[in-house]
């Protein structure tokens, strides 16, 4: 610490007379506010102001910059738009399958890794965490090639006689969704695992000892002790993963480009397409944007209600 040594005796003696308390308090308040001003202003400009703009735009329609007010037309269109409904369905499918699978997998991994007698712990932990260093675009492109009709995955599956002909990982509507789910799970399981591992380190081991004496099996211990103990962190990670999945864009764009048809397209990608790929319709795109915001709020509330009743 480099606290400057300016504390001479003469300085102490010439301490300025205390100023009126009010102006001092005002000055302190101003200093406090000036510390937080830039950040608050920038968040206002780049988050809240655009959301207000989007709200206004969601009642407008037209191509490019020529927008005119159309009332609730966009919102009516939203519920009759088959593409929008497909993208919501796809996004929710990713969400309700991928998030629980990943969280369970991450929990299992962290419990196994938390075993005191385990060897090569560091290696396993690093290896499973490693996917987190990749950029979303880069790993998506790698997955696209791995899951190509003649890619390594199909080659391996055929070699071990699990399938007789290549699985259409990228071009079949069902398998394409599976590919996306597998990809996201690969990228994020290690990330979630790290959270659980650090939470597990704070769990008192004697609880497990007691459970063992009472004859609880490993599986019972997992569901009856580990999961309840980690509830807050599970809630946190599931909300983060939910918000992330609802915004899914990079993977779908680079693995399947939303195809085949629109069968893997997400809401984010639809907003992108509406604004920058098709004839731009910013007004309607803004309406779709609010759909994601509302979904995020709904899912977060559901998870809070489900996970935190007794807090």
């Amino acid at each position: 610490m480099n606290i400057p040594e300016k504390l001479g005796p003469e300085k102490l003696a010439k301490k300025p007379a205390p100023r009126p308390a009010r102006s001092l308090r005002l000055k302190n308040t101003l200093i406090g506010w000036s510390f937080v001003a830039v950040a608050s202003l920038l968040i206002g400009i780049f988050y809240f102001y655009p959301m207000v703009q989007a709200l206004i735009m969601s009642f407008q329609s037209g191509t490019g910059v020529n927008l005119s007010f159309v009332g609730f037309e966009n919102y009516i269109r939203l519920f009759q738009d088959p593409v929008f409904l497909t993208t919501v369905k796809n996004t929710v499918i990713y969400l309700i399958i991928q998030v629980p699978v990943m969280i369970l997998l991450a929990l299992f991994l962290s419990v196994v890794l938390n075993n005191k007698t385990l060897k090569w712990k560091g290696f396993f932990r690093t290896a499973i965490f490693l996917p987190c260093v990749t950029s979303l675009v880069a790993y998506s492109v790698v997955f696209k090639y791995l899951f190509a009709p003649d890619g390594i995955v199909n080659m391996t599956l055929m070699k071990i006689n699990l399938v007789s002909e290549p699985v259409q990982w990228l071009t079949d509507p069902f398998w394409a969704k599976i590919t996306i789910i597998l990809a996201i799970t690969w990228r994020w399981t290690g990330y979630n695992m790290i959270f659980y591992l650090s939470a597990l380190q704070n769990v008192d081991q004697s609880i497990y000892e007691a459970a063992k004496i009472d004859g609880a099996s490993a599986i019972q211990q997992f569901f009856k002790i580990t999961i309840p103990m980690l509830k807050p962190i599970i809630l946190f990670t599931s909300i983060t993963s939910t918000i992330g999945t609802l915004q899914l864009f990079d993977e779908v764009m680079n693995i399947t480009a939303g195809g085949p048809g629109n069968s893997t397209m997400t809401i984010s990608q639809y907003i992108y397409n509406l604004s920058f790929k098709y004839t731009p319709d910013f007004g309607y795109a803004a309406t779709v944007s609010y759909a994601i915001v509302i979904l995020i709020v709904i899912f977060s509330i559901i998870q809070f209600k489900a996970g935190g009743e007794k807090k």
Partner: protein
Amino acid sequence: MKLSNKVIGYLFLSICAIISIFPFYWMVVSMTNTSSDVTRGKLLPGGHFIENLKNLLQTVDLVPALTNSAIIAVATTVLSLLIASLAGYGFEIYRSKAKDIVFNILLLSMMIPFAALMVPLFRMFGSITPVLPFIGIDTLSAVVLPTITTAFLIFFFRQSTKMFPKEILEAGRIDGLKEIGIFFRIYVPTMKTTYAAAAIITFMASWNNYLWPLVVLQSPENQTIPLLISNLGSSYSPDYGMIMMAIVIATMPTAIIFFFMQKHFVAGMMGSVK
């Protein structure tokens, strides 16, 4: 029974580890092979490293893209850290009811998905382009500006400030330091690890950012690394060896940060839970 449990545990971990590592192995091996070797499923290193690198440098503007990404990531990191740490410090040290309300409003912005922001942001930058062309559409500044302030980072700094020994600040005041001086001369040097963790998450997020640059950058000379990789990946007759070379190069900076600063890296990732 105990032994079999152990075997299952090791088996499970080994399978997960192999699945996690395999794409990396494949990337690295494929960057040394020809495209047809890669399609044939060759999993051993070959001798075409130099050739793939040459091809890559000839086909795409790799160096300008790396430079753009580096400029954006460094600028974003420096500005973000400054803005967020000032705010996190301010919210905690000069705590007041009104500031807590502001802080909670700022936290709400974490719920806003970027997809919802991109259209109004694009229009915002579009409308300032004629007036201030240097921060308008298709400039690196336009990529940086909306990303330098995140509520998450402010929250991260505020949480860390809670642990900060407040007596040191009092000591600084008695020594006659101005409030801003206390921040820069006492707080910043003592919070090195927090800054390191914050720098890592911010740098990585910026280096890998895809959607906003895709929207706001248009000319090829402004391309960033994720845009370049994405373009390569969507080509109809991909040269696998060359593309893997590009992907490995793009992953290098974050991989290096990870291996040399693992502790801070993990701390940064987990910053939000305390």
